């Protein structure tokens, strides 16, 4: 088939150029595509116009010269057979008209000459254009893989700070987008500001040397660089951060270049001090801050809403920013927008989780409070029943023991001692019963305005004997402007008596009992400070439990009753204690309002 076709074509060819080889060669000679005919020794037999132009060598310079020497051929890609056996193709570098080495593809077809020796037809294709395309393609592929790498880094970035760093490192790293400097401005809606948040890059050539020498300590991936990102340069905040902050602008400032660039739908480019794409106002101020009249500003959006501006320049190398640079920066901007949106969501989520946790804690605390008060009321009810049942037998036991003691002539001293023990123990049980019954009968407080200083002094006076007995000195201190409490005077008095008693009991060998009063927001605090034995952590933890006591004669209800009374007043009792140092019990009550004070004061 091939032979027939060949013969067929040959006959057609002959029909076009019967015996007109010269004419054929002249026609080929006028072609702009360079070609040559070589003899068996590779010497040039024919050199067309295209070759003259391409190599800058006239026909007379070329004829008879060895082809490879003539073009200073340097093979780059070895020859490969093409089609039939006679044609080969290889890539090489040839010295061109202006002395530059150009990539070419040589197509060489061996031809049998009439003398039986072989010659060759050599066609040269200029690969400069396709080589540059190839290079651009390779670069684009590399950039896309960088963008992918940056994307992966952004995906795994957990904090907004890390996202900012990744974007900036990506824009400036040598294996990244190779901008000299990059600045990130983020929208701060709450303050109505587009704020310069972060920046990366050297402030001047000198700093560039330091940074780039540090960054170029080879073999590092982008992720390594982000990991290594150190916001401080030699322990100082880099000047670019200061520049970033200077770039900030009010969001409602219509004259601001950065705000216009932020709200633009596409990238704003400034070349030679003029806005060449986009219609932002004069970048005059920004040029002043950046110190360069060429830069790119890519708006970052999430869900179509502008959230930030990524600004990049080549302030150090002054390399012109190409369309490619802009394309790739836009890709980075796209990813940055998404990453920031994700970070925003993550932050929002974290905030919600935190508030949920807080709510759960609050709920648990309330639950504990409810359980505790339910337990207390259940205990209270139970205790009241038990107390009543116990009271009558106690009266009988104690009463008869006392009766017997009234007839001393009937007992010996051992019996008397036993009877006294019975009487004392019954007295103690009766105290418990009494407190239980008080505790199990909560009455709603009758709120009035209570001057706590007077109340505390009265309580100390009432306990004067108990204080003197163990050598405790009591004293009341009042901070200036302490308000009166909104409280039921009787109930609070009862609570304070309980707390003071506890304090005295904690100081069996004497000490100082200080009652300190002061106003707090919406309330008033009474701190009862003793210099007594204090409580261990275990004891402290159980101190407010009903019936818990460390005292041989205690009911374990004093503090519980005080707490319950405080709670009925929307107040609270807090205990702080250090073993061996003393205890501070703080009773907080709502402050009386002016109205309540006036009502009690007849002069007004």
């Amino acid at each position, binding site marked *: 088939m091939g032979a027939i076709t060949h013969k067929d074509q040959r006959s057609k060819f002959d029909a076009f150029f019967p015996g007109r080889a010269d004419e054929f060669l002249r026609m080929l000679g006028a072609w702009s595509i360079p070609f040559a005919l070589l003899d068996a020794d590779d010497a040039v037999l024919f050199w067309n116009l295209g070759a003259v132009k391409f190599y800058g060598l006239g026909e007379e310079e070329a004829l008879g010269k060895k082809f490879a020497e003539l073009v200073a051929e340097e093979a780059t890609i070895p020859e490969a057979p093409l089609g039939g056996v006679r044609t080969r193709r290889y890539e090489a570098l040839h010295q061109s008209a202006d002395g530059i080495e150009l990539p070419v593809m040589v197509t060489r077809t061996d031809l049998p000459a009439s003398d039986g020796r072989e010659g060759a037809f050599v066609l040269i294709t200029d690969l400069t254009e396709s080589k540059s395309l190839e290079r651009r393609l390779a670069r684009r592929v590399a950039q896309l893989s960088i963008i992918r790498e940056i994307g992966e880094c952004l995906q795994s970035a957990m904090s907004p700070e890390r996202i900012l760093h990744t974007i900036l490192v990506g824009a400036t790293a040598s294996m990244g987008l190779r901008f000299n400097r990059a600045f990130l401005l983020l929208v701060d809606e709450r303050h109505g500001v587009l704020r310069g948040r972060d920046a990366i890059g050297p402030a001047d050539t000198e700093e560039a040397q330091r940074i780039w020498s540090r960054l170029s300590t080879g073999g590092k991936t982008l992720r390594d660089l982000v990991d290594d990102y150190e916001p401080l340069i030699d322990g100082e905040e880099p000047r670019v951060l200061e520049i970033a902050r200077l770039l900030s602008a009010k969001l409602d400032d219509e004259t601001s270049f950065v705000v216009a660039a932020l709200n633009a739908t596409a990238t704003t480019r400034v070349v030679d001090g003029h806005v060449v794409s986009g219609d932002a106002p004069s970048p005059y101020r920004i040029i002043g801050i950046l110190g360069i009249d060429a830069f790119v500003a890519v708006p970052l959006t999430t869900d179509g809403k502008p959230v930030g501006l990524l600004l990049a320049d080549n302030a150090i190398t002054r390399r012109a920013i190409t369309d490619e640079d802009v394309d790739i920066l836009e890709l980075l901007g796209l990813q940055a927008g998404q990453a920031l949106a994700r970070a925003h969501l993550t932050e929002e989520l974290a905030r919600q989780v935190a508030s949920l946790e807080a709510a759960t804690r609050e709920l648990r605390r309330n639950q504990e409070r409810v359980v505790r008060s339910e337990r207390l009321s259940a205990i209270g009810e139970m205790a009241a029943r038990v107390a009543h049942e116990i009271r009558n037998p106690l009266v009988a036991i104690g*009463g008869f023991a006392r009766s017997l003691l009234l007839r001393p002539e009937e007992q010996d001293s051992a019996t008397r001692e036993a009877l006294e023990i019975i009487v004392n123990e019954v007295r103690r049980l009766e105290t418990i019963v009494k407190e239980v*019954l008080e505790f199990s009968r909560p009455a709603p407080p009758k709120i009035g305005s209570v001057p706590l200083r007077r109340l505390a002094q009265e309580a100390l006076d009432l306990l004067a004997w108990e204080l003197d007995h163990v050598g405790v000195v009591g004293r009341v201190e009042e901070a200036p402007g302490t308000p009166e409490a909104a409280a039921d005077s009787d109930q609070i008095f009862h609570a304070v008596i309980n707390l003071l008693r506890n304090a005295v009991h904690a100081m069996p060998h004497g000490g100082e009992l200080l009652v300190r009063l002061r106003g707090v927001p919406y309330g008033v605090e009474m701190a009862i400070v003793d210099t007594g034995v204090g409580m261990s952590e275990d004891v402290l933890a159980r101190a407010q439990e009903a019936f818990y006591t460390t005292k041989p004669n205690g009911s374990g209800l004093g503090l519980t009753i005080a707490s319950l009374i405080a709670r009925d007043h929307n107040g609270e009792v807090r205990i702080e204690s250090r073993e061996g140092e003393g205890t501070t019990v703080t009773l907080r009550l709502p402050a009386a309002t002016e109205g309540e004070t006036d009502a009690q004061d007849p002069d007004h």
Partner: protein
Amino acid sequence: MPKILIIEDEKNLRILYQQDFERDGFEVVTAATAAEGLAMVQDEAPDLVVMDIRLPGMDGLEAMSRLLDKNPKIPVVLNSAYSSYKDSFMSWSADAYVVKSADTGELRARVRELIASRADS
């Protein structure tokens, strides 16, 4: 010798109070229920009644108001394990309210006071 009626459902307390008041020089009669007590007020004409509030069958406060209907001048001392009745307005008509205690000192003191003031009038 002034006569005291003790209305108390607890047998041991009846014995205790009887002993204590007799030692203090009173004649003592006792009743275990409100109904029995009301009958004894008629029959024995005591100078003073010491009564518990929670009694089987009839509430002590109810019993007291019936008792006072019949004999408004007789002093009544309420002697209860419950301090809570102290605030009940029914208790106000009693001449004294004493919370039960093994120390009968307070109860005996109030009884002595009331008997003394009655003797004066």
